[in-house]
Each structure stands twice: as C-alpha cells, then as structure tokens.
C-alpha cells in the first residue's frame, strides 16, 4: 500500500459504506426484519447484537444477498453499497459477493488443501494471471488471516485437518483473498475456544484498516472489545445504533439497557 492510499483513507474516514433504508424481510408469512435503516461506516467494525432470533443474522445476509438462495425469503427496501442499489435488477449477486465477503458461524473450509481453499476465490474471479501471481495472493491472504506462520509448511495439507480456530482464520483468509471491500462475519467465534476467539478478535481489529467489517455476535463482551459501532436488534427491529462505548455505558433505549444488563434475551 502506498502512502497516497493511506492519505485517502484518513480523509474519508467517516464515509458510509453501506446504507440501508426501510429494509423489510419476510420468510413466507413471517415478518423477520421490520423497517431497519442503518448506515454502516467504512473501515470500521460494526457489531450487531441482540437475542437469538432477533433478525441480526438475517439482516447481515441481506447485505450480500445470501438470502437469495432461500426460496421463501423476500427482501424489501433499499440497501446501497457505495451508493449503488444492490437489489437492482442489473446487479449480479455473484459480483456483489466478490465485493462483500462473508465468514460463517461454523468454520466451513472446502474439503481441499489449504492452498486451494484460499486460491479458489481468486481463481474463479480471474484475479491471478500466473501461478506465481496466485502464490502471492494466497500468501498475502493467509498473512492477513494471521495464519500464514502456522500453515506455510503444509499448504497442500487438507484445510479440514486444522483446528477449529485455524479453520476459521483460514475462512477469513479465503474471504479476503478475493479483495472484498466489506467483510460480513456471522458469529465467527461461536464455535471457537477462548484462545482461538482472542486470535480471531485481534485479527478483526487488524482487518479494520482495510475493510468495513460487520460482525454479528452473541457475546456483548466481544462486541465491546472489537467494535466501534454497535447496533442492537430486538424482535426484528433495530432498537438502537451508535458508538459502541455509548451503547454499553449509556444506552438511550430502555430495551438496550435491559439486554446489556442481562434482563432480556
């Protein structure tokens, strides 16, 4: 990264990456997301918190149109990435997902080698012109996933043979290998032990320098540790959205206060 880019970063620090307005999501007859409007800022970690079934994962999946794969799911409203409506008819979800990467709750490496796991995205998007190019992309992604040192000697060992924490970091490396602009994380640490969780959290904090990260989490401590902005969802509504510090110390809505102090959820 050259200095010019860094300068640009500093300037547009508070630009909005994703702007959602009046989003409604229905699963068949169930109204899962009720009129949610939120602005996700660029190069920030935004946490979605809330009790189970409150719709935070559903909303996250709207941001890269993963809900398209569910037949009965219907999304209404307006979601813009850099000012472009991602639900526009002309938008190909495949292109969108290359721009908005996703890391899932359960580590889900492909049953292929570590190298192939990371190389898959760049390969299908034609990001590498040569084998050396691809090697470089894979190494860069694995370094950004903070797993390079652990796997550099066994890149051709199966990705499924790694420990849970390593698998999740591999999945993060896989997601960043396609050079996305936004990284969506759906409870990335829920299947991990505390040490692996700490490693992933540290990684998320580093990723903030280059990506807009949106993370769904059940752990309020985690939200407090890694995020700058926090959104609290309850029963399909966005109850409160603000600076993480403010949400946890001085919530405006009584429901937020009840949740973070452990009375509802």
């Amino acid at each position, binding site marked *: 990264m050259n200095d010019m880019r860094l300068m640009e970063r500093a300037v547009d620090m508070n630009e909005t990456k994703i702007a959602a307005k009046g989003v409604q999501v229905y699963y068949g007859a169930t109204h899962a997301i009720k009129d949610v409007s939120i602005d996700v800022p660029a190069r920030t970690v935004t946490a979605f918190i809330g009790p189970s079934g409150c719709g935070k994962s559903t909303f996250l999946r709207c941001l890269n149109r993963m809900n398209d794969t569910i037949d009965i799911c219907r999304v209404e409203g307006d979601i813009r990435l850099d000012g472009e409506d991602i639900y526009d008819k002309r938008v190909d979800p495949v292109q969108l997902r290359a721009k908005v990467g996703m*890391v899932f709750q359960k580590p889900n490496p492909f049953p292929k080698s570590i190298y192939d796991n990371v190389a*898959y995205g760049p390969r299908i*998007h034609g990001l590498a012109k040569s084998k050396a190019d691809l090697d470089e992309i894979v190494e860069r992604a694995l370094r950004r996933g903070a797993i390079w040192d652990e796997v550099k000697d066994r890149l051709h060992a199966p990705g499924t043979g790694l420990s849970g924490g390593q698998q999740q970091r591999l999945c993060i490396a896989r997601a960043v*290998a396609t050079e996305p602009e936004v990284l969506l994380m759906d409870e990335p640490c829920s299947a991990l032990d505390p040490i692996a969780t700490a490693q992933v959290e540290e990684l998320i904090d580093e990723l903030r320098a280059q990506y807009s990260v949106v993370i769904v989490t059940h752990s309020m401590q985690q939200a407090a540790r890694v995020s700058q902005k926090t959104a609290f969802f309850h029963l399909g509504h966005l109850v409160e959205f603000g600076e993480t510090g403010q949400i946890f110390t001085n919530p405006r809505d009584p429901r937020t206060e009840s949740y973070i102090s452990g009375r509802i959820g």
Partner: protein
Amino acid sequence: MTDQTQNLGRSLLETDARTRKRNAAEARFKAFGVAAIAVALLALVVLLTSVVYNGASAFKQTYFELDIELPEAKLDKSGTRDLEVMKKVTTIGYAPILTAALEAAIEKAGIETTLDKKAIGGLISKEAAATVRNAVLANPEIVGTTQSFSILAEGRIDGYFKGRVTLESAALDSNTSPEALMLAQALADAGYADTKFNWAFLTAPDASDQRPEAAGLGVAILGSAYMMIVVLVLALPIGVAASVYLEEFAPKNRWTDLIEVNISNLAAVPSIVFGILGLAIFINFAQLNQSSPLVGGLVLTLMTLPTIIISTRAALKAVPPSIRDAALGVGASKMQSVFHHVLPLAAPGILTGTIIGLAQALGETAPLLLIGMVAFVRDYPAAYTPEAGLFGEASTALPVQVFNWTQRADPGFVERASGAIITLLVFLLIMNAIAIYLRRRFERRW
C-alpha cells in the same frame, strides 16, 4: 416427601420390576434381530449351495482326445481344395469320420464292446462334427492327413463323468445305455477321454435343445456387456443432470413436487411395464432392431434412471449446506458451487447408486423378454455394423439365457442354467466390489 425417602431407600443392587421388564424387552428384541439375520444367512447359504452344487460342473466338460483321419475322398472329392466345393460336405458327411476315429481308438486300446457302429457314434456330441468341419474349412491343407482333435462327448457321457448320470439311470434312458457308459469309462482309462476346464462355456454361443454339452454363454455375456455400456453412457449423465437440476436449481413448487413424486413412483413400476414401453416406442415406433442390445440398453436405462436419480438426490442432500454457503460467499456462481464443490462431495454416493442401478439392470429379465432378447442366437453380435448401427445386432443377455435354459427338456441344461447363474452372480459381485472400492477411494479425499 415420603415418596422421595422411599426411593432413596431402595438399593441399587436389586433391579426393580420396571427395569427388569425393560431389560427383558430389550433382550427379546435382540433375539429377534439375531434370528432374522440367521434366517437370512441360512437362506443365502442354501441358495448358494444349491446353485454351486448344480452349476459348478458346468465349468468342466468331457472331451474325447482322438486322432482323426481326414480322407480326401470324402471331404474334397475334386482334390482342388476349393472352399466352395468343400462346403458342400455337411456335418452329416463328417459324422462317420468321427465314428471311425473313435472305433479305431477302441480297437487300439483293446476294449471289447457289444455296441454297434451307430451306438458308438452316439458317444460323440452332434456338435463335434461341426467343430471338425470348421477346422477343415479354416485350414483345407489338413485334408488327407491325420490330426488330433479334442471333441465334445455327448451330454449323457459328460454327465456320467460328472456323476449326474449313473449306470442305473442310463438303463432307463432311451438316449444312452449302461454299455455306452462303460465303454466311455474304458476309453477314459485308456487316456482317450478327459474332463477339463470348460472355457467354451464362457465363450461359445448357445446350442440347440439336443446338445447341452455345447451350449455356452458367450453371446449372452457380450450382449449383457453391450447393454451395460448403453445404460452407463445414457443413464449416468441423464440421471445426474436431472437430479442436480431438481435438487440445486429447480424452484420448489407444485410442478417439481409432482415430478419428484412421479420419479419415486417410476422406481416402483414393475419392470415388465418398461418392457412393453420399450416394445412400443423403440421397436414399433422407432423401428430399431428387436433383440438388439441397443433396445435392451434403452429399456434398462429407463428402468435404471429413477434409481440413479433418487440415490443422486440423496447424495446431494447429504452435502452440508455450509459448503454451498462457503462457495457462494466467495462469489462463486450457483453452477460453480455445484460443480466445483457439491458434486465432487456427492460423487461416492452417486457412484454407489449408479452401480447398484447397473447391477439391478444386469439381472433384469422380464423387460428383455418383451423386446425379443429371449431369441435363440448363435452368432456373436458386432458392436457396430453399417446395416444394424451401434449395438443393433440380435443378442441375448445373461439372465435371459438362464430363463431360456431352465425351460429346456434335456437334464444337461439344469447344470448349464446353474452355471449361468454362478457367472451372473460373479459379475454382480465384481460390480459391487468396484462400487465399494470407488466409494472408499473417493471418500479418502478427506
């Protein structure tokens, strides 16, 4: 409160009535299970024993080892070795030459017999004359010389060496006599008759009702192999494509539900119905050759498709959705996620289903009867001819050959039919072994 103290007072060392009852029920269930498996195993053992007992002898065959003089005066009167002329001498002309050779052997061995010339000739299979004639026509130069031949013994004589025919049963049989059997035994003792492995059973074509000793499975094995090729080439791609579409791409609505129900129903349709369908469509409408492996393969393809579709869909369903999510999450298209990730993971299941479907098709008889594969076929089908096209020549199939032979009167065919069943079972075992091997191999890719 009182209940609790009572419960606490009960010793763990004695079982109460409820627990005893529960344990007894479990023991009973296990006993039923063991009994069921034992019955199944017993049935299998009885089946295999009876088939092997009856059929193992089909893999051995009695031959006379004779030096046969091939007189020019009888086989090539013109002396020109012109094939057209020589072909005019039929097998009837060759039979006396064989009888003479056998008589010469009897005399050389110094065996006394009361049998007349005709009865001595009866020891030799009717097929033998054709064997010698073919050898002569293939190589006319041997006329006028004496050649040693291995020629088939008649079915009853063969049966005697295998223990199927005894002197007592021969006394009641108008086709043979105890004297003939004793003569054959004496010839064997003198080294003129020998029972050896019967390659012809696996390579020769079928033979007529009167000569079970010459009947072989060659045409049936080839016909079955051709049909399996047709089934594999058609059913695997069509079946996999249909299931991938239905499982991964098709919208879930009333139409796809209807199709799904119908596929399940097709799997349960009696196979003979597919035969009628094949007769109507492929033979009567499309004018393909009847009895041909192509039509047989097409009918079996229709029959195998539901099996392949159902097992492929089950294999696709078993692939964890997280893999699809992962692929879509890095920006793969639906098709890329299916072909790069889902299908390879489902491959072991698909292969198993396909081979089970093929094995089922290999053993299928009923639909083949309706499309004429039950015909008596003496000539090998060619894989391709300009007139008949690909796999268009008449043929039979293994299970149909079994069906055919079990209907014939000569007791020699009981042995042949059982031998054919053994061959069919060996083919099925090989296919299942391949299925297991492939599944293991693909699953080992983590």
